[in-house]
C-alpha cells in the first residue's frame, strides 16, 4: 500500500523530470528572432584564412573584406575601380602608380595607417614571411613590380640587405609609389584583391604564427571571435572610415554546415541567406516550394568548373590521353544531373562574360566514347592506375566524381577516386597527395573581369605549382598570353584577338577537361534589405566581390 503509492509517485516524478529535461534540451528557437541586428549564415566549407599571404578562396573573402581594406576597391555592386583607403593616379606610360593615403585612416586598434604599413603589406604578400604558414600563393600576381624577382628569392628569409621590392617606395609621407616593368591594364584590379589588403605590421610581428586569430584591419568590422572550423563572429569597428551607423551589430558565420541543415536553419528564420551555388537536393526543394521560389535568385557568373590534369608526368603529359578523357566525359549529363540545367557548357578557358572569349569555339569535345577509346589506344595507355582527386565536402562533388569515374571506366581507364576535405583552387598540391594525383576536380571564380585572371593565372608556366595546378605548359600559348597581358587597355581589340587565339590552342591541347561555366544562386530572406534606397539587394550581381554585408540592413522580423 505505502510501497505501491511510493512507486507510482516516484514514477510520476521521473516522468516530470524527463519532460523537463526534454524541454531544456529542445532545439533552441531561431537566433534571428531574438536579436534582429544579426546577420547569421553559413558556409559549407572552412574559412581557410584571414592572412592575405595565404588567401586564395572565395569563402575567406567574405570576412576579409569586412575586416580589411585595400588601397583601391570596387564601387559597391559594380566592377568599377574607385579609391579605397588611398586616392590614386597613373602615369601616362602606365608604369608608375601613385597612391596617396586618405587622411585619418586607422586600424581598429587605433594605430594610424602609414605609407610604411602599405609597403610592408605589399612586400609581405609577394614572398610570404617567416610567420606566414606557407609560400604566398598569390604573390606571383605582383610579379610585374620592379624588384620582384630579386625580392622573391623563394627562401624563408629575405635576401641580404633587402627590405622589399625596389619598385615600391614612399617618396613622401602618406604616399606610396609602385613602378611596374611593363604596363598592365588590370594592375589596379590586382591591387584590389584580398591579397593586397593593408595589415598592421606591429600586430603581424607580435602574433607571428597565430596572426590570423588576432587579425586587425581598417574595415567596417573587426574580429570578435573565431572558433576555427566552427564559427567566426565579427562586430562593428566603429572607428573605421567605412563604419555605417545602422550596420548589423554582428556578422555570425558558421563553417562546415551541410547544405540540408543550412536550408533548415534558413527556413526557420535563423540564417539570413543560403549562399550558393545551391546543391541539387536543395534546388529540388526550392522548386517544390512557392515561398522558397520567391526568395530565390540566380545569376551567371564568370567562373569555370573543370578537371585539371597533372601534366608534369605520365600519362597526362600526352595530349591524346587528355583528349580521350575530354571525349569520354558526357558534359551535358553533368550539366543536367549536377547543375539541374543551371550551368552552361564550358567551351574554352574563358567564360563568355570575359572579353577575349572566342565565340567560334562552340562544342570542342562532344561526348564520344568510341573516339575516346581509339585515342586511348593511340596514346598507348597500358592500364596504369589513375588517381582522381576531388573535394568531398558536398554530395555534388561526390556524384560528379562517381559519374566521371564510371565514364572513364567505360572506355577502359583504371580510375581511383580520392575525396579530400580541402577546398580552394590548388588544394591538389597542398594536400598530402602532393604530386600523387592525375586528375583533379577544380573550379575558378574571377578575381576581376579580365582575361589575364584566367589565362595567365590558371595556365601560365609562371603559375605552375600554384594556381596552374597541373602545370599546363605550351610555349605558343604562353607567349600569346604574356603579350596580351602587357598591352594597355587602349589596345583592347588586339588583346582580345590574342586571348581568343590562346583559347584555341588550349582547347586543341585539351589542357583541361572543360566541364561547365559557373552560375550562382542563393536564397535571401525578405527581411534583408539594402542600406541605400534604390539599390537592388541581389547577391552576386556584383561580378567581382562578395556581397557587401556592411551595406545591408536587417529589418525586424
Amino acid at each position, binding site marked *: 500500500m505505502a510501497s505501491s503509492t511510493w512507486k507510482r509517485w516516484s514514477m510520476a516524478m521521473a516522468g516530470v523530470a524527463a519532460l523537463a529535461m526534454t524541454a531544456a534540451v529542445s532545439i533552441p528557437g531561431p537566433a534571428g528572432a531574438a536579436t534582429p541586428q544579426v546577420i547569421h549564415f553559413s558556409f559549407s566549407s572552412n574559412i581557410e584564412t584571414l592572412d592575405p599571404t595565404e588567401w586564395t578562396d572565395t569563402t575567406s573573402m567574405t570576412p576579409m573584406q569586412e575586416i580589411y581594406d585595400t588601397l583601391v576597391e570596387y564601387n559597391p555592386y559594380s566592377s568599377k575601380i574607385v579609391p579605397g583607403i588611398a586616392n590614386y593616379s597613373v602615369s601616362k606610360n602606365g608604369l608608375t602608380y601613385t597612391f596617396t593615403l586618405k587622411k585619418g585612416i586607422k586600424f581598429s586598434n587605433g594605430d594610424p595607417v602609414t605609407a610604411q604599413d602599405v609597403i610592408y603589406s605589399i612586400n609581405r604578400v609577394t614572398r610570404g614571411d617567416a610567420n606566414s604558414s606557407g609560400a604566398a600563393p598569390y604573390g606571383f600576381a605582383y610579379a610585374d613590380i620592379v624588384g620582384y624577382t630579386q625580392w622573391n628569392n623563394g627562401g624563408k628569409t629575405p635576401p641580404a640587405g633587402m627590405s622589399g621590392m625596389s619598385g615600391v617606395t614612399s617618396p613622401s609621407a602618406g604616399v606610396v609609389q609602385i613602378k611596374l616593368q611593363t604596363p598592365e591594364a588590370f594592375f589596379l584590379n590586382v591591387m584590389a584583391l584580398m591579397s593586397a589588403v593593408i595589415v598592421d605590421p606591429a600586430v603581424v610581428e607580435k602574433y607571428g604564427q597565430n596572426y590570423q586569430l588576432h587579425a586587425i584591419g581598417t574595415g567596417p568590422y573587426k574580429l570578435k571571435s573565431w572558433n576555427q572550423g566552427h564559427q567566426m563572429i565579427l562586430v562593428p569597428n566603429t572607428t573605421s572610415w567605412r563604419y555605417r551607423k545602422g550596420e548589423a551589430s554582428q556578422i555570425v558565420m558558421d563553417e562546415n554546415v*551541410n*547544405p*540540408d541543415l543550412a536550408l533548415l536553419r534558413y527556413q526557420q528564420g535563423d540564417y539570413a541567406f543560403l549562399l550558393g551555388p545551391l*546543391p*541539387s*537536393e536543395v534546388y*529540388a*526543394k526550392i*522548386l*517544390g516550394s512557392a515561398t522558397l521560389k520567391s526568395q530565390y535568385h540566380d545569376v551567371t557568373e564568370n567562373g569555370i568548373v573543370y578537371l585539371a590534369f597533372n601534366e608534369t608526368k605520365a600519362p597526362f603529359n600526352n595530349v591524346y590521353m587528355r583528349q580521350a578523357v575530354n571525349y569520354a566525359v*558526357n558534359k*551535358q*549529363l553533368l*550539366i*543536367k*544531373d*549536377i*547543375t*539541374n*540545367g543551371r550551368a552552361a557548357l564550358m567551351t574554352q578557358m574563358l567564360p563568355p562574360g570575359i572579353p577575349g572569349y572566342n565565340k567560334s569555339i562552340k562544342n570542342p569535345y562532344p561526348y564520344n566514347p568510341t573516339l575516346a577509346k581509339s585515342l586511348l589506344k593511340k596514346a598507348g595507355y597500358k592500364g596504369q592506375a589513375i588517381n582522381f582527386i576531388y573535394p*568531398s565536402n558536398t*554530395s555534388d562533388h*561526390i*556524384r560528379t*566524381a*562517381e*559519374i566521371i*569515374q*564510371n*565514364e572513364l*571506366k*567505360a572506355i577502359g581507364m583504371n580510375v*581511383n*577516386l580520392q*575525396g579530400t576535405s580541402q577546398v580552394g583552387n590548388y588544394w591538389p598540391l597542398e594536400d598530402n597527395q602532393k604530386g600523387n594525383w592525375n586528375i583533379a576536380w577544380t573550379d575558378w571564380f574571377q578575381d576581376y573581369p579580365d582575361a589575364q585572371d584566367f589565362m595567365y593565372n590558371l595556365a601560365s608556366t609562371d603559375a605552375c605549382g600554384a594556381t596552374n595546378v597541373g602545370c599546363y605548359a605550351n610555349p605558343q600559348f604562353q607567349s600569346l598570353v604574356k603579350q596580351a597581358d602587357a598591352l594597355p587597355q587602349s589596345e583592347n581589340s588586339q588583346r582580345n584577338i590574342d586571348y581568343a587565339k590562346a583559347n584555341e590552342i588550349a582547347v586543341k591541347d585539351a589542357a583541361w577537361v572543360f566541364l561547365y561555366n559557373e552560375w550562382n544562386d542563393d536564397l535571401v530572406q525578405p527581411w534583408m534589405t539594402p542600406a541605400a534606397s534604390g539599390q537592388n539587394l541581389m547577391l552576386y550581381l556584383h561580378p567581382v566581390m562578395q556581397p557587401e554585408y556592411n551595406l545591408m540592413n536587417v529589418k525586424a522580423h
Partner: protein
Amino acid sequence: MSLPVEVPPPTPSGFADEKIRTPFQTAVRRFLHNKLAVFGLVLVIIMVVIAIIAPSVAPMSPYTSYPDGTTMQGLPLPPTWHWHHFFLGTDSSGRDEMSMLLFGTQVSMEVGFMATAITLVIGVIIGLISGYVGGWLDNVLMRITDVVLAFPLFLFVILLRSVVSHPTVATVYEVIGILGWAGIARITRGQTLSARKLEYVESARAVGVRTPKILAKHIFPNIMGPIVVYATLLIASNILLESALSFLSIGVPDPTVSWGKMINLGLSWYQTDPLLIVWPGIAIALATLGFNLLGDGLSDALNPRAGE
C-alpha cells in the same frame, strides 16, 4: 553440452514408435517446424542466390548514369514499375535503383560471409587451444581476448580502414574479421571446457591420441552447434557494420555498389525523394532479419530448453 540419443517414451496405447533419430535429425525436424526459422532460411537463400546471379538478373547497369535517368531538370525519377526501365526509379545521378539493390546484395553477402569466416577461424582456434590446453596459455589468451573485447569494435574498424590508402572490398571484410574474434573465442573456450570432460575425450587422451586430432575429431564436432548459431548472428551484424561503414564513406570503394552508400547519397533527398533511402533500408532490414531469424531458429533447434 552433450546431445544424448533421444528415445521416445512408449505411448499409452502401447504402440511405440521404434524409430530412433540422431540428434541432427531431431534438430532438423524442430527447425522445420519453426515457421519463423524457415522464413529466415528462405530469405537467406534468396539473398545468397541474388548475390550470385545479380549480373544476369539485374535489368540495367548499376553503375551507369543514364541520360534519360533523371527528369528534365536533372532530378531523380520515381518508380516506373517497368522491370527493364527504372523499375524502382533512379537516384540523383540517373542510376537504376533496382539494379543497384541487386548488385548491393553481392557486397553485403561477401562481406557478411567472409568477415565471419575470418572471425571464426581466428576465434575458434584461439578458443579451442585456450579451453583445451588450459594453464598459463589459457590465461594469456583470455587476457588478450579481454583487451580486444574491451575496445569499441566500430571505432577500431574505422581507424584501421582509414589508414589503408587503396582500399578494396577485401580490405573491408579483412578489417572487420580481424578485429571481431573476441566474442567467438570466449564462447568456443567455454564449450571446449565442457567438451573436454566428456568420457570419450578423456579415454582418447588416455589412449594417447594427439591433441590436434582430439580437437579436430572429438571436441570440435561437439561444440559446432553454438558456434554455427553465433556465426549466423555474426553475419547479420557484419552486414550492418559494412552498411554503416559505407554510409560513412569509408566502406567499399567506388564504383562498388553498397546499400550503405545508397543511403548516404540518398539521405539529403529525404524531403523530395524519400524512396532513395527506403529501398536500401528495406534491403538491409531483410538481410539482417533473415540471418537473425535463421540464427534464432538454429539456436532453438539445437537446444530447445535454452530459452525456458
